[in-house]
């Protein structure tokens, strides 16, 4: 309906004449149609997923704007990269090389430990999920919803991103994919008031849920009793319950514990481990839906070259587009 009337006024008729001989439905009818259409859309989208394809096709029209707005940030970044002095690049290079060396050494034992874990779990007849695939997505520096903790990244359904996928960064869990569009996707941060993530205390396995507070540096743990064994400084990791987030990733550190004797629950706040306000690059994770039994290796996603698999850690991590590779590539 909207499109039809959009094209109509371009008829080769002078607008003055058009005004004299006003055609088409009256303004009240038009308003009524518009209201009915909007309300129908609102109700349909609120109750079902049927409009996702419409949104995806409309977003192709609108997404170029997001990239356009993001352009200055990229330009500034690139110029600052290219005018950096040799010594600072060299320092950064050295630092990254050291970091990579340490990480690699840490990962040496990881492979055997993982195999051992699978074997032990097989003994217990317990399934074990592993073989997560990662995709690096870059944040678009645009601001769509200032009152919600939602960010937009530059990878969408074209890269196989789908809603409810977990999103991480180098330090911890960032959030989950809220809506995937063809060329971009919206990510709800763990600190959004509408977001809750099942966590457990790393020290003793105490299970609870961390709810977003609306502030980027705070999570609330509202469901713990007064006598819960939890202390400031405790690390909270994902418990894997609920199935959205893979288990074992760091989420937050408990920083405040105020027992309230007159109430059944304590008020505990935690600080997210991920740098929610400083990140430019995020990792979108595919966790394999089928649990792995003993000895079988997971199949990698060969159709998508940008999806990196991290299953055999030491070998493939080096093929990642690490910041080090990027910088050395640019200086040459």
């Amino acid at each position, binding site marked *: 309906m909207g499109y039809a009337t*959009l094209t109509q006024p371009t008829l080769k008729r002078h607008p*003055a004449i*058009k005004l004299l001989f006003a055609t088409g439905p009256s303004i009240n009818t*038009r308003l009524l149609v*518009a209201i009915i259409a909007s309300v129908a859309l609102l109700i349909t989208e609120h109750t079902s997923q049927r409009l996702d394809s419409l949104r995806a096709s409309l977003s192709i029209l609108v997404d170029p704007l997001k990239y356009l*707005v993001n352009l200055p940030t990229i330009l500034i970044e690139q110029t600052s990269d290219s005018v950096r002095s040799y010594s600072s690049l060299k320092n950064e290079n050295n630092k990254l090389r050291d970091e990579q060396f340490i990480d690699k050494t840490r990962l040496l034992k990881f492979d055997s430990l993982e195999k051992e874990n699978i074997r032990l779990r097989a003994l217990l007849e317990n399934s074990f999920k592993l073989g997560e695939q990662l995709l690096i997505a870059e944040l678009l520096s645009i*601001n769509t919803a*200032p*009152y919600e903790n939602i960010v937009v990244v530059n990878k969408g359904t074209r890269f196989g991103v789908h809603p409810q996928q977990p999103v991480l960064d180098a330090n911890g869990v960032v959030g989950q994919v809220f809506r995937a569009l063809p060329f971009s996707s919206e990510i709800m941060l763990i600190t959004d008031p509408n977001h809750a993530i099942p966590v457990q205390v790393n020290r003793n396995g105490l299970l609870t849920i961390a709810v977003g507070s609306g502030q980027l540096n705070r999570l609330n743990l509202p469901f713990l009793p007064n006598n819960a064994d939890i202390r400031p400084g405790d690390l909270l990791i994902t418990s894997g319950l609920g199935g959205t987030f893979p288990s074992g990733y760091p989420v937050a550190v408990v920083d405040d514990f105020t027992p309230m004797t007159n109430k059944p629950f304590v008020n505990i706040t935690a600080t997210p481990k991920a740098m929610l306000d400083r990140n430019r690059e995020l990792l979108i994770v595919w966790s394999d839906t089928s649990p792995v039994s003993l000895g079988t290796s997971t199949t990698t996603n060969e159709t998508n070259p940008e999806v990196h698999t991290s299953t055999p850690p030491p070998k493939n991590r080096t093929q990642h587009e690490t910041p080090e590779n990027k910088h050395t590539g640019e200086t040459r």
Partner: protein
Amino acid sequence: MMNNYIGSGRIITTIIMAMCLRIVPWPGFLTGINPDWVLLVLIYWSIAIPERVGIFHAWTIGLLTDVLTGRLFGQYALAYSLVIYICLIMHKRLRQFPLHQQAFFIFFCLLFTQILLFWLKNIQNPAQLHASFWLPVFTGTFCWPFIYTVLRRVRLSRRTK
């Protein structure tokens, strides 16, 4: 009336620019007070050339804004078409108003939009909102004279053939 005829290209360009301004990441506290540029531009065009900018245009642009800002489908479409309806009905009076009186009218338009969005948001999931949710109404009102002057210049500048 001849002067009123301007190319659709100019209208579309201004609206695209308004959409860009809508999602630009402003530094610091400016993020929270970024006014609804798209609606302001739409209001201008609907007052200046009501025969060219109708309710369905507003509805379509509202739908695109919904997609752009990741809202539920139809929120901005509904709000924009209602506001543009009021503007279309009152456009003859509004043209006679001095700028500050127009700004007063714009204030109520923006306030109406924000209340509508707030209400729709509350229906979806009731969540407490920061008081700064209402600030864009005021900044939008203060931006109106600026938008009016700029867009008037765009409209009256010589038509490219």
